[in-house]
């Protein structure tokens, strides 16, 4: 039997008491903190799960307590503004109905004018609504208001704006030649004294096709892109007319297809063959002839020598320079044919595909691009390695250097009709990316307001002559921000469903005008050193949405903002402006009539000559007033449908915003549930179960008491006490 000493017993008792104390302490801490763990190492599993739950809960709290309420407030502001806009446009709609149907008194007109002005300014004030200092309708540009609302800033602003239009925006507009004016006393005197023998011309209404741009008072205006057919006949020295070329231009590239409206110039991947900056030395014009082959393009140099490439139906690649035909027969479909230089080295090969398309590759089957210059051309592969230096070789590659049409004159000397040796100096192709080039072809005229008045006056005098003279022309009216299209042009465009883009500079805006960056691709040049480029449309003319997305749950983002472009058409502003102008014109015309009447009645103009002159003026003024009334009525009546459209846009925006608000509410409920769930989970993970703890604590405490009692007993007595 083991010898037990009192010391051992005391020692064991000590250990046991301590053990009991540890568990009492642990349970006591659990009871007072209500947590299972006092430190992570108590239970790594629970501790780490707690961390995970914490992270999730903190994310949910962020969504539920910050992002969602924030998004809701944002959308409330948006919806309020949208509802207000709806009311305003409804008001404008009612006004246009009134203006279109009723016979108006002067008072009516004045009232309409006042109302129109106030509605117009209110509409855009609503567009400037902000949530906590951030404009809600301006996309990512929340620090900018939608309109210029500071007069100084507006008048200093300098922009270059690009605007796109389609044939649908071509409208018939009425202009007035020889507007009637209240004659001055001097004019009346002059007529009476025989100084002037004619009475003023009577006003005439001229009807023209126009496209209205978003802003008036422009500085410069250019047409930068169009896709309607332009007659570009080109005549060679010998008088041959070389036909049509259909050209579609973009800012930096020129796309060519055949002019016959038929086959397109395509590369083997059926991509429209596009080129840019193919520089062969000198100035260039290009055109295409009536097409015979599948692929055909012609170039013409500054001496009008023509270089053409074509692959005909029989599989021949024809290269023609100034009537000298160099034909390389491309063997029939599915074959590859090599072309060697004078040294017998393969320079390039033509691969014909079964579908009739072809590719020209170098001897390693790499695609080839060639830089031509005036004296020689170097054929290089895509890596830029020179394949052969071949004088008189020309290659056309597409604009990203991938595909080509190529011809090699190596070893061939062609002579021009004039007998000169034509080695190189073939042609220069310059992309017509300059607005001027296009305008030259289009025959565009820029007119000041005065010039336009003169033009209108001429039209009144010789309607048919002027119409004929301008039938294919385009007139830029920078002052009023309009483009007038000749009848022919307008009809062609409509029939061709054409579209075009303009680019104009505008220095200085009116307070209340919409900032161009809200609607258009534009450049803010206010600070010339730091122009800011705004891109609102992608390459395919698609609107780039600037969606402000709030993270409202772990895997859901919600677009909270509505952009002004999707609420109000930019035309709305100018519509209201033109309506205001129409009313103003009517008011002015009527006051002219009244004033002339007053002059007639005045004793100062008793003289019969004077009376005669004034009566003529009165006639004119009355005619003018009748026109103005009619114009205003028509204008207002045409606005009815437009405002209906604007209203439906706003309603759509309200519905859209509302449905997103609904979604947000659903998410909010879900987040509320999740918050509860995770709080419960966290609590069940972290928090101590009180009833369990209490029971454990009681038993631990009892054990502790018992161990103390035992210790007391043990240390109480030993045999020594009995001696």
């Amino acid at each position: 039997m083991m010898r037990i000493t009192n010391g051992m017993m005391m020692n064991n008792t000590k250990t046991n008491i301590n053990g009991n104390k540890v568990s009492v302490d642990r349970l006591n801490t659990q009871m007072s903190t209500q947590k299972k763990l006092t430190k992570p190492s108590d239970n790594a599993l629970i501790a780490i799960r707690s961390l995970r739950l914490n992270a999730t809960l903190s994310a949910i709290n962020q969504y539920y307590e910050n992002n969602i309420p924030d998004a809701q407030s944002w959308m409330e502001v948006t919806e309020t503004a949208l509802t207000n806009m709806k009311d305003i446009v409804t008001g404008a709609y009612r006004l246009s109905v009134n203006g279109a149907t009723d016979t108006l008194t002067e008072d009516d007109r004045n009232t309409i004018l006042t109302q129109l002005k106030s509605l117009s300014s209110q509409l855009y004030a609503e567009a400037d609504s902000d949530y906590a200092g951030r404009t809600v309708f301006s996309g990512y540009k929340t620090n900018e208001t939608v309109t210029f609302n500071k007069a100084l800033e507006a008048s200093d602003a300098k922009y270059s704006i690009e605007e796109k239009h389609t044939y649908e925006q071509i409208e018939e507009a009425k202009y007035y030649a020889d507007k009637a004016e209240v004659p001055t006393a001097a004019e009346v005197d002059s007529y009476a004294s025989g100084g002037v023998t004619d009475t003023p011309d009577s006003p005439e209404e001229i009807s023209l096709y126009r496209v209205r741009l978003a802003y008036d008072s422009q500085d410069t205006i250019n047409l930068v892109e169009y896709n309607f057919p332009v007659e570009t006949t080109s005549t060679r020295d010998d008088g041959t007319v070389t036909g049509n070329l259909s050209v579609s231009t973009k800012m930096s590239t020129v796309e060519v297809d055949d002019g016959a409206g038929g086959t397109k110039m395509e590369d083997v991947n059926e991509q429209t063959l596009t080129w840019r900056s193919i520089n062969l030395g000198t100035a260039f014009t290009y055109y295409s002839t009536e097409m015979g082959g599948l692929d055909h393009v012609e170039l013409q140099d500054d001496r009008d020598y023509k270089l053409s490439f074509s692959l005909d139906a029989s599989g021949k690649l024809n290269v023609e320079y100034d009537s000298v035909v160099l034909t390389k027969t491309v063997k029939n479909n599915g074959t590859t044919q090599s072309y060697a230089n004078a040294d017998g080295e393969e320079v390039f090969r033509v691969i014909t595909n079964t579908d009739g398309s072809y590719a020209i590759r170098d001897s390693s089957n790499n695609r080839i691009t060639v830089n031509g210059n005036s004296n020689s051309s170097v054929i290089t592969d895509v890596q830029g390695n020179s394949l052969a230096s071949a004088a008189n070789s020309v290659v056309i590659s597409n604009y990203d250097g991938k595909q080509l049409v190529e011809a090699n004159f190596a070893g061939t000397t062609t002579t021009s009709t004039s007998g000169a040796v034509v080695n190189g100096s073939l042609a220069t192709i310059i992309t017509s990316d300059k607005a001027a080039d296009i305008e030259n072809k289009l025959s565009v005229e820029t007119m000041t307001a005065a010039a336009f008045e003169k033009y209108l006056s001429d039209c009144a005098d010789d309607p048919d002559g002027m119409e004929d003279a301008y039938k294919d022309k385009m007139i830029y009216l920078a002052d009023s921000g309009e483009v007038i299209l000749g009848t022919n042009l307008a009809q062609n465009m409509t029939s061709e469903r054409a579209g075009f883009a303009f680019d104009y500079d505008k220095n200085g805006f009116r307070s209340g005008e919409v900032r161009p960056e809200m609607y258009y691709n534009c450049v803010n040049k206010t600070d010339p050193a730091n122009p800011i480029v705004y891109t609102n449309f992608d390459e395919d003319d698609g609107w780039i949405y600037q969606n402000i997305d709030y993270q409202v749950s772990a895997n859901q983002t919600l677009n909270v903002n509505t952009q002004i472009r999707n609420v109000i058409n930019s035309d709305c502003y100018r519509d209201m402006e033109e309506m205001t102008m129409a009313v103003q014109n009517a008011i002015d015309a009527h006051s002219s009539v009244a004033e002339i009447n007053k002059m007639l009645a005045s004793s100062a103009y008793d003289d019969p000559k004077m009376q005669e002159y004034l009566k003529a003026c009165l006639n004119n003024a009355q005619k003018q007033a009748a026109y103005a009334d009619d114009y205003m009525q028509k204008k207002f009546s045409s606005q009815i449908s437009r405002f209906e459209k604007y209203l439906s846009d706003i309603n759509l925006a309200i519905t859209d915003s509302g449905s997103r608000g609904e979604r947000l509410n659903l998410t909010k409920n879900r987040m509320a549930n999740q918050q509860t769930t995770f709080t419960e989970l966290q609590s069940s993970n972290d928090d101590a179960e009180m009833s369990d703890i209490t029971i454990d604590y009681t038993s631990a405490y009892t054990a502790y008491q018992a161990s103390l009692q035992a210790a007391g007993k043990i240390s109480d007595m030993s045999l020594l006490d009995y001696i």
Partner: protein
Amino acid sequence: MSTFFGLSIAESGLRVYHAAANTTANNISNVNTKGYSKQVLNTSSSAAIRSYTSWGTISTGVTADSVTQLRSQFYDNKYRAYTGYQSEFETKNEYMLQIENYFRDDSTVRGFGSIYDTMFSSLDSLSTSPADTTVRNQFISDAQNFCSFFNTVASSLESLQQDVNEQINSTVSQVNSIAQKISILNSQINSVEISGSYANELRDERALLVDELSKYVATETKETEVVNSNYPDMYTGATNFEIKINGQLLVDGDRFRQLNCVARDYRVNQSDTRGLYDVYWADNGENFNPTSLSNSGNLKALFELRDGNNEEAFSGTVKSISGTAVTVVKPTLTDENSMTMPQNGTISIGSKNYSYSGFDMYNDLEGNAQYVFYIDSDPNGLSSTAGKTAALGSDIDYKGIPYYQAQMNEFVRAFAKSFNEIEQEGVDLYGNPMGAFFVAESVTGSEIDFYDEPATYFESSGSNYYQLTAGNIRIAKASRDDPSVFSTAMLEKYQNGIDDEEMTNRLLTLQKDTVMYRGSSGQQFLQYIMSDVTIDTEESQLLSNNYYTIANTVANQRTSVSGVDEDEEALDLLKFQNAYSLCSKVISVMTEMYDKLINQTGV
């Protein structure tokens, strides 16, 4: 046979039981003396006298032979082994609880998890309102908290390392002092025992010192009897007491050795504090190597805590030497984020140490990483080191302070890099290109913004993420001073409007979707560290408890042999009292007998 012989027998009994009672009294009075072993009086019956009578010999009473102590060498050894383990794990537990506390994150202490999540919540708010300076400020201040968390933990770990280091120093002094004391005791014991008696108290004192020593280091003792070399069978009474710690001789009889703490003048790990001690033997300068597998005790624990790198020290093979540049291939660390080597320090090549002033890393033609170390000491002997192993510090299989420092460094580097790389693609509110948002503060207080870092070539002195540590991560001053200097948009997007959220959305993915640390996201960083800490803490707690229990059991067993039991002593006391009384009775009886014989017999 003397007539009065009986008196002499009784007298021997009186003397012996008096001595026995004294021994018992000594036992009782030392019942609570630490290290005291129960002493017993060994008695034997005195040699008998031949009486040449028919009944043979006459017994002569009792003799007290010696006072010896009850002590079991077996239990002593066992006790010391387990005390060593217990104190090792107790020390680890004590420090692990502190480390655990630094990483604590719960309802009472805002730790990494809450700080990290708060920072990303602010970033999330920022993504809904990128241009709002107030929200920006909130985020930047939360990001500063993030940096402060790492700075604080890093400096706590650093001072903890310093504490451990100081404890190492004092522990080594303790060991030295114990060695000295024991050697003195050895000679005292011998001088007592050579005369044939037992130096019980001195032995108790020595055993107690050895017990204490075994808490610090693994201790083995060996006591051999000293024999006369001329007469090998002759017992001299002297013993030779030998102590080995960590397998190395500490005390040999009256000779003892001393350990020296030598402060390093270099760092082994990048984030080490200066002046860490290495322990060498004072006499021959050999390394004490406290972290060897066979060692135990608190010194080992302290070293593992202070230097433990989870066996992730840098090592590689020397490929070539060119002047003082040593090319090392097949390195164990190839990622600048996980580099733990100090910018300059000591590298061991073969078995020699060389100090280096810097290193480069780049990929060779096959894409394998290789290092070049620039040795600045005398390159003699370097040329023949090709093919040898080059190492920095040693692999220590414990997740100690350097491990947590390295993990934090790795995390902040990966995080800062991912964050900055996104930031640097954008522009701030003024439209200026954004620099690094998280920067490293150099020792001179300037900002290192990681700009010049070449993609293919790593230089230890370069402006790279290697310079960034948990201790020096800061928010760029420009952003701290002006919340507008923080990028939330790319240049082209910025031009399209300040509230573009693409950048912030990308930054938000860093929270839990971007893999950046140990194959997982930033959010899991704490979980990893936490599981490292808690598992080690739990383990040290468990082992410390287990060894405590075992040591306690052994202690009980030891007490069972050598402890003083009051009941037993009381019984002994009664026993000896009885015997003494009886002896006294014998004398009385004898006296009466002599009285009868002398005064009454035949009178």
